[in-house]
């Protein structure tokens, strides 16, 4: 495996709590959650930069709400 | 990332897998295989002239010698010569692919001009004949040649 670099994260209490909750819910370590968050962040930024739009769709009403505005 | 797999594992699974098909994932439509385009056994002579002429004019318009085009597009120079000079020459599939990629022309359309496929779309065939008729000389592109070439290129790009 390619050598990994270590980083220290400074999080607020609320952020730490959110992180713990996600770990619990997704059965992932803190590192795994943060890595997944990074992948999602990079992916979304990449698409939005290209001009694509990100929407949430209401399952019942099929209404679309745009998530990010540039 | 590094993946550790033993030789034994590879060979044992190769035996079990044998010649199985393994493809997965959505596929996109390609007119050659799913649409209007049919494979052709006979190169059409009309489009053959247009193909050779097209390659030569595109090459010259890019300021390339035969050698340079052969080198840049990773092709046999002997075949390039035949394509440009012999309108009855049936080009290799790979050659047409490489030329389509190099000149940034839709592959299927260039294959049709090269006479390797036929299509229900007759526009390319008739435009190819028109192009061949309008483009003659072997020296630097004239204004007329350039116009003819540009028009034909836009047809090929449009018909995708």
């Amino acid at each position: 495996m390619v050598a990994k670099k270590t980083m220290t994260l400074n999080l607020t209490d609320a952020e730490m709590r959110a992180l713990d909750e996600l770990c619990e819910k997704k059965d992932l370590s803190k590192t795994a959650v943060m890595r997944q968050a990074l992948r999602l962040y990079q992916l979304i930024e990449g698409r939005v930069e290209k001009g694509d739009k990100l929407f949430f769709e209401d399952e019942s009403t099929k209404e679309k709400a745009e998530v990010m505005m540039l | 990332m590094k993946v550790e797999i033993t030789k034994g594992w590879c060979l044992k699974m190769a035996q079990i897998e044998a010649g199985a098909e393994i493809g997965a994932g959505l596929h996109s439509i390609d007119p050659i295989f799913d649409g209007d385009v049919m494979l052709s056994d006979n190169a059409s002579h009309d489009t053959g002239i247009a193909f050779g002429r097209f390659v030569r004019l595109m090459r010259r318009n890019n300021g390339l010698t035969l050698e340079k085009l052969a080198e840049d597009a990773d092709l046999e120079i002997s075949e390039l010569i035949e394509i440009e000079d012999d309108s009855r020459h049936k080009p290799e599939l790979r050659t047409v692919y490489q030329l389509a990629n190099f000149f940034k022309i839709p592959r299927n359309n260039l294959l049709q001009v090269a006479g390797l496929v036929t299509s229900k779309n007759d526009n390319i065939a008739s435009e190819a004949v028109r192009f061949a008729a309008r483009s003659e000389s072997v020296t630097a592109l004239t204004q007329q040649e350039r116009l003819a070439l540009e028009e034909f290129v836009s047809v090929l790009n449009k018909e995708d």
Partner: protein
Amino acid sequence: MTITISPIYLLNAETNEPETAELWDGITEKQLGDWEGEWLPELFKSVQKLHRAGIERKHWPQSRHWNWRRKTEALQGMLAQPGFAIVCNGITQGMMILDTAMKRCQLEGQKGKDIVYVDFIENAPWNRPELHEPALYRGVGSIMIRAAIALSEELEFKGRIGLHSLPQANSFYANTCGMSDLGMDADYQNLRYFEMTPEQAEAFIAKGTQA
């Protein structure tokens, strides 16, 4: 793009001898060049043979028109969408693109959990007996699935993977890989969706280590 190469072996079906090969953890220009210059012309020739033999279009090989270049250009450098390639004898023998962020498990018992999803996987045309008799190398599929599982484990997804199989490959994923069949997916051109649990991943790896 830095590539890590892992040594692997393929079985040369013509000589029945093992051959050293490489597992690359990315799709590079080399793979795209091989796809355009080697795979496509070979695919075209095989289809031409079928066409001349009068075989109906519906029996022609699938996965013959995925545009790898277009697909990889759209994914340039995305962490969420890694790829793998197998190179043997200087030529690309297999390619795979994975999605690690956008999909979740559907199988009861692991529903909603993170999963490594196989976006595309394809074997070189000369390795496929239905296109090329005799086929050349064996083992590409198994090694690729092993790589997908390895990535899933590295991300702490415990080996869970998922994919939509092309019809002719259903048997490989159901039987050789031992994945769960969740049926035809209307949202994916009715391709069959298969999912692997951590236990199935273990069993698949164990399969290759049994005597």
